């Protein structure tokens, strides 16, 4: 079991463990980013207000942020996440803001 390599095929061992799972349901795993207009953090369309702003009735203030990687999120959602880890949750690149707007 620990001797990886066997069923995962050659060259996979060095790869990120998360993605070498043979029992992982890979089809459904990325269901959230199939639709690229959906904020991967709160899972609401980026053109609509995020879950937090909807709950607090602040729809007007909710804007979209694009990263250099071209992924977009609600600015509210992303600013919470970058405090935790300054990476794009979708592509794992370091997060650099490209623009903020609607």
């Amino acid at each position, binding site marked *: *079991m620990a001797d990886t390599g066997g069923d995962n095929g050659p060259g996979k061992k060095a790869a*990120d*463990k*998360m993605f070498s*799972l043979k029992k992982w*349901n890979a089809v459904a795993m990325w269901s959230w980013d199939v639709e690229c207009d959906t904020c991967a953090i709160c899972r609401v369309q980026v053109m609509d207000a995020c*879950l937090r702003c909807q*709950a607090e009735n602040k729809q007007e203030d909710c804007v979209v942020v694009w990263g250099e990687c071209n992924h977009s999120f609600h600015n509210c959602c992303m600013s919470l996440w970058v405090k*935790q880890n300054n*990476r794009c949750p979708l592509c794992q690149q370091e997060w650099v803001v490209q623009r903020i707007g609607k």
Partner: protein
Amino acid sequence: MITLSKKLKQAKEGKPVEIAHSPDKRASIRDKLLVKEVQEMESNLPPTCKVTFDDPDKLHQFNITIAPDEGFWHGGTFDFDVDVPEDYNILPPRVQCNTRIWHPNIAENGDICLSLLRETSLDATGWSPTRTLKDVVWGLNALFYELCDFDDPLNLEAAEHWLRDKESFQEKVTSYIERYAKR
């Protein structure tokens, strides 16, 4: 007291009564996410896993049992508590193993070393808000299969035991199962 009377006053004056950033409100974000995620998790469970909710109104606290169908831990039933913090999904769920186990990635006190549950991580394997409860269950289940990692152990003694003598490792695993993990 002051806040309440102020709010009542505001309400009378027709201003919206709003309790910004109250714990309830933050929790409701988590709970909204959980409504979908619990459903997704339950309809995609590994055949070796069972999920139970003590209180159906608290989607953030549940229990997972895993009964591996092959490998070192076959024959045991292992019990995990999942607690989803208020700041989910910025923070990952907290998971503890309630069954004493001899495993390289689960300490005897129940702490678990699973990369996707790691709050901060320097690489891409840690927690990310794109992950959901389904990924957590599959990740835990994989600790009994391909994610079982003897090279980066939490229970160093168990990992060394396996390295030294696989047969004796299996014996100790089995004796722990007999004592602690029989259902």
